[in-house]
């Protein structure tokens, strides 16, 4: 049977529920291994929207009639440049992957996705760096990046901005911005192009590449 409890009593009950739920929520976030750091700025604005010196040659535009794919790529490229970073495309990334300096550690690839996605597959030789939980890998990756000539950062590609922000994280940690490039097409484009992949931990060997 419906109660005749007053409206004010229901509102008071709601206030108690909100207070208890808020306390529970903050505690759950603090205790969760996936919890967010509330004070951290996960999406910092770029201080200087200046494009780095071109260490990687840009291909000349060959087709005036831009396809949808081209306009998406252009949009991604513009987004990366707006953050003061150097975008590179798949062909440039592939060249750097086959560059002898890659094996010498002078070209470093950084995978900015989370551990689970990294384990599922990544560009062979790439180092993981999850910017949301950088404590695990940042120190080691920083040393590698500082001694490298060029650092390529990628994430999923498309709308994913984690590579952009990881590059900014590395910049803020001391890696010269001129060294940093962002592969905008990201892992989705790389894997869709049937390029070499590695699964599990770094150095675990090439994964089978699906035939075209």
């Amino acid at each position, binding site marked *: *049977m*419906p*109660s005749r*409890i007053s409206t004010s*009593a*229901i*509102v*008071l*009950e*709601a*206030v*108690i*529920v*909100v207070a*208890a*739920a*808020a306390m*529970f*929520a*903050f505690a*759950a*976030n603090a205790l*969760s291994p*996936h*919890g*967010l*750091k*509330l*004070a*951290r*700025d*996960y*999406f910092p604005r770029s201080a200087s929207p200046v494009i780095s010196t071109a260490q990687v040659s840009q291909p000349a535009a060959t087709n005036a009639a831009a396809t949808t794919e081209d306009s998406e790529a252009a949009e991604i490229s513009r987004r990366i440049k707006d953050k003061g970073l150097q975008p590179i495309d798949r062909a440039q990334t592939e060249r750097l992957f086959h560059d002898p300096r890659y094996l010498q550690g002078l070209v470093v690839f950084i995978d900015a996705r*989370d551990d689970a996605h990294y384990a599922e597959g990544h560009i062979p030789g790439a180092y993981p760096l999850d910017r*949301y939980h950088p404590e695990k890998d940042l120190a080691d990756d920083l040393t590698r990046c500082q001694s490298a000539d060029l650092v390529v950062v990628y994430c999923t590609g498309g709308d994913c901005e984690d590579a952009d922000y990881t590059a900014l994280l590395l910049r803020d940690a001391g890696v010269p911005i001129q060294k940093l490039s962002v592969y905008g097409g990201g892992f989705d484009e790389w894997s869709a192009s049937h390029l070499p992949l590695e699964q599990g931990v770094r150095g675990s060997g090439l994964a089978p590449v699906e035939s075209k």
Partner: protein
Amino acid sequence: MSQLSAKAIDFPTVVARWSLGALFVYTGLEKGLDPVSFLKLVRQYDMVQTPFLLNSIAATLPWFEVFCGALLLAGIAVRGTALTLTGVLIPFTGVVWHRALILQGAKAIPFCAVKFDCGCGMGEEFICRKLLENAGLILLAFWLLAGRGRILALRYSLSAGD
């Protein structure tokens, strides 16, 4: 006999309470266990610029939902919880609607063809379906607010006189 019929009338409301509670626990856990993805989804609304506020919403809202869902499942402070969820659902539905209008304008497609992940914990959905779902949830919450669904409740009201 009259008590039996009252319980029979009450039972659908209890099922509604359990359904609403289970849904909030499920969607809250989906988001709470992957707060980074939820953070990115909250950011897409572009309504909060302060990092602390943005992080706080993304970090706590899912667990807030889990807590409220658990209260409904257990039957504790049912009307207060229903009022709280109504207070969350109505503005959130408005925000989702607003975001859909922006996407509709950007893509130049019919409103109901707009499909995106609103951060509701159910992945990508067509907007009209999402709005109908939310309307249903709001109605369920109002139903609970009306004071039914008190059988199988641990402590239906926190008020001593109720």
